[in-house]
């Protein structure tokens, strides 16, 4: 696939259809993948990678990139296309300046997950059937994907690209995922158990802001947490209240806009399952307002931020015992 993508990128750069390419490159270590913009064939040949570590969602980078001169080629995984659509809906990406090439994804692992499985000295990775074959200093190691994928990929919601100009590989399908299983489990806890669960998780927060910085829904020109006038800026995770409130405020801010890409949990250095907060919102929206998946398209209106002339007036809702 990597070769096909490089060939496609060269072709489009060569023809002048695009002047930049958004993809991934390897950092210090092979599993240390960074999103990168390539402007020449030489750069592409030298650095461009697409492998089982390329989990980074590239869509958020297009907010800035699509506003630059010329057109950019962006390789998007199915997951990333949801974010892309949502950002289009919010007018954050200029669609005309992006050429989207959909690339398939069979689940992306990362160094952390592999290391946790006892794999050391990682030199490379490839997929063979349902397994990852990891090349290490100590020889090849084979791991079943079911053991070596993060939760977000195990409960993948879709292999289908929601938007693309061109597709490399076969068209995928929307999956019947079990992504709400864990949410249901937490829902079944008593309030005290649930509070303890989240205290246990959130107490580890070091307020590094990685979750916010990577989140495609957190694309504000000025985040409330950076805005002195908001009253919540510059707060440190100094006490349990601050630890809790940061994540709760963030979950509210992205509610109805979160596409459940799972980047927040991927980048969390403390391994807090942050995506579960957002999933709870998604599940509640489905329950109360009907099935809604942010990023599925660019035209439907989000249930939480929509005024419809048919909306029931609050006085009527309460007057009739809360029934709609």
């Amino acid at each position, binding site marked *: 696939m990597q070769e096909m993508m490089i060939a496609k990128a060269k072709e489009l750069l060569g023809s002048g259809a695009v002047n930049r390419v958004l993809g991934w490159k390897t950092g210090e270590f092979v599993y240390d993948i960074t999103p990168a913009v390539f402007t020449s064939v030489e750069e592409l040949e030298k650095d461009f990678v697409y492998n089982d570590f390329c989990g980074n969602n590239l869509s958020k980078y297009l907010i800035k990139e699509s506003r630059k001169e010329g057109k950019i080629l962006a390789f998007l995984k199915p997951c990333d296309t949801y974010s892309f659509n949502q950002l289009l809906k*919010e007018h*954050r990406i200029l669609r005309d300046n992006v050429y989207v090439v959909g690339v398939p994804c069979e689940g992306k692992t990362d160094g952390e997950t592999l290391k946790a499985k006892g794999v050391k000295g990682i030199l490379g990775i490839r997929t063979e059937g349902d397994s990852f074959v990891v090349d290490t200093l100590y020889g090849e190691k084979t791991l079943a994907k079911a053991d070596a994928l993060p939760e977000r990929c195990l409960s993948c919601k879709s292999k289908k690209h929601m938007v693309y100009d061109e597709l490399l590989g076969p068209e995928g399908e929307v999956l019947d995922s079990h992504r709400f299983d864990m949410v249901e489990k937490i829902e079944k806890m008593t309030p005290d158990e649930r509070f303890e669960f989240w205290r246990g998780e959130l107490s580890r927060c070091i307020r590094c802001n990685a979750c916010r910085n990577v989140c495609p829904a957190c694309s*504000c020109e*000025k985040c409330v947490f950076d805005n002195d006038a908001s009253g919540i800026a510059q707060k440190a995770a100094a006490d349990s209240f601050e630890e809790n409130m940061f994540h709760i405020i963030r979950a509210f801010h992205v509610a109805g806009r979160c596409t459940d890409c799972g980047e927040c949990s991927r980048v969390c250095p403390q391994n807090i399952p942050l995506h579960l907060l957002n999933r709870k919102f998604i599940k509640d929206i489905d329950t109360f307002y009907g099935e809604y998946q942010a990023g599925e398209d660019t035209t439907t209106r989000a249930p939480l*931020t929509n005024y419809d002339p048919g909306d029931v*007036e609050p006085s009527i809702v309460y007057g009739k015992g809360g029934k709609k």
Partner: protein
Amino acid sequence: MQRIGVFVCWCGSNIAATVDVNAVSEALAHEPGVVFSTNYQYMCSESGQNLIKDAIKEHQLTGVVICSCSPRMHEATFRKTVAAAGLNSYMLEIANIREQCSWIHKDKAEATEKAIILGRAAIAKVQLNAPLTPGTSPVTKRALVIGGGIAGIQTALDIADAGFEVDIVEKQPTIGGKMTQIDKTFPTLDCAACILTPKMVDCAQNEKINIFAYSEVEEVKGFVGSFTVKIKKKARYVDPVKCTGCGECTEKCPMKKIPNEFNLGLDTRRAIYIPFAQAVPKVATIDPDHCNMLKNGKCGLCAKVCSAGAIDYKQKDEIVEREYGAIVVATGYNPIKLDDYDEYAYAQSKDVVSSLEFERLTNAAGPTGGTLLRPSDGKHPHTIVFVQCVGSRCSNEGKGKSYCSKICCMYTAKHAMLTREKYPDTDVYVFYIDVRSPGKNYDEFYRRAVEEYGVHYIKGMVGKVVPRSDGKLLVQASDLLANEQLHIEADMVVLAAAIEPDKSARPLATMLTASMDTNDFFTEAHAKLRPVESPTAGIFLSGACQGPKDIPDTVAQAGAAASKVIGLLAKDKLTGNPCIAHPDEWMCNGCSSCEKVCPYGAISYVDKEFRMPDRTTAIRRVAVVNEAVCQGCGACTVACPSGAMDLKGFSNSQIMAEVDALCKM
């Protein structure tokens, strides 16, 4: 730092009896920024207002907090007061220590403490107040009246009389409304048509009045002073200019078996029809659901007989866009459907009729030519039972209405009286819960029915009506005063059905952003002091759309609504509300969240060039609020993810300051 003056009002004993006003003014005197604090018996009185004005000048106040009644009561009064003393009128905050404090507390110590806290919150807010200046907007000197019944007609005539243009939009083919179906009117018993039809003709002939009959309001945009309304003129398939209303077509049309709405289905009409002889406009209308030509292209008889060549089978619905300064809602009422009332055998027997059907059965222009005949066999009825409050004052939710329909007592008395007068051989019973006759000459009217006309008024409800095979209706009822069960063999039963707002009212209310109560009656801005205005500026209420009303009340309210409209249209410019939303363009993402929650369509977006901190130039999409359209509801400020949208006069920081002050004990 502001220099704040605090003024605590006693409101006579309304506040002072429950709140220690001295303690309040003393406590608030020590709040940060407060340089003057006092209390007075009636702050809203002239001497109270002078006290405020003098203090502003003497102490160079920059902000004023008045602890008094609800801002809905006297905010406007006190805004004028502070403005008269040279202060911006939005440097005033009111702490409601009456409705939300003294009136709801019994314990003086508790109420005093709460009044102090409410005062503190207002002081915290006024610290952050900034002077605001309202904008002005022009007034389109034309009014729209929605509904062409007696309410709409009277409102339109009164507005036109003052020299302003008025459009009436009526969904039926003719104006006139329910009153056209009524035979006589209480309490004077003059003929409804005789007093209504001249007004209908006046409307048609008044050059200031434009009637859109057989039309509906499709869309309303804009705000007080300049509404833009799309009106759908439904296709009549008849050219209203060419049609002379001769009625030739309505006699030749072969489709004869269509239930006649005007007579409530008691007789039939043709597929091309004129609702009644005095219709305005007197133009035929083709019913597309029944016309053979429109349905399958066969027939065309009406076009052949029309000497004026007015028939146009290709006519299409037409959308007209018009501008208005004010809108009057006069959508009226309908009797509720009685099909579910099996206990009264309404759906089972033709001889059980609603009161409006009874009107048609006694009307000279009705299906029986005015002779009261039983619908089942056309025979003269000898015993008639009237049942009141059918669906009114009903505790059973889902069936019926909780409110009193107000008009039924009087029209039932009228029906009973007229029946006895015309057919003295008829026995007439009226079953009632209470007889309500509080109007001029109303009780006298009802007493006449009982005393002079010998109508049997029985306090109690009918439990069951059973149609018998011999054509009689067996009425089982209780007489609560005599404490006995009654069994009456009746020939007819007349049900005084509850009335409800027209079904078109709710979607219309949504279009107008006018509020409604749980029964879908439009709510007035103030139940006592602003009874013909909706809380939405520029929207006025006329007639039964606001609540059940008889004709005298409707006409009175129609005139009142007209005078309010005239007062508005007479102005050249309107002063807006400066408490509106505004975006911080530097923080705005241009994400459209605010636009999607705005009920008024006040938000749009522009691509604007910005000099960025890194000295580059960027074009960013940012929100723009139309200051004339924004009503300051604040929905956008909540939807905005970055907090870029804020409300002037109610900014996020002001609200937070209030909350902080409330929580600081």
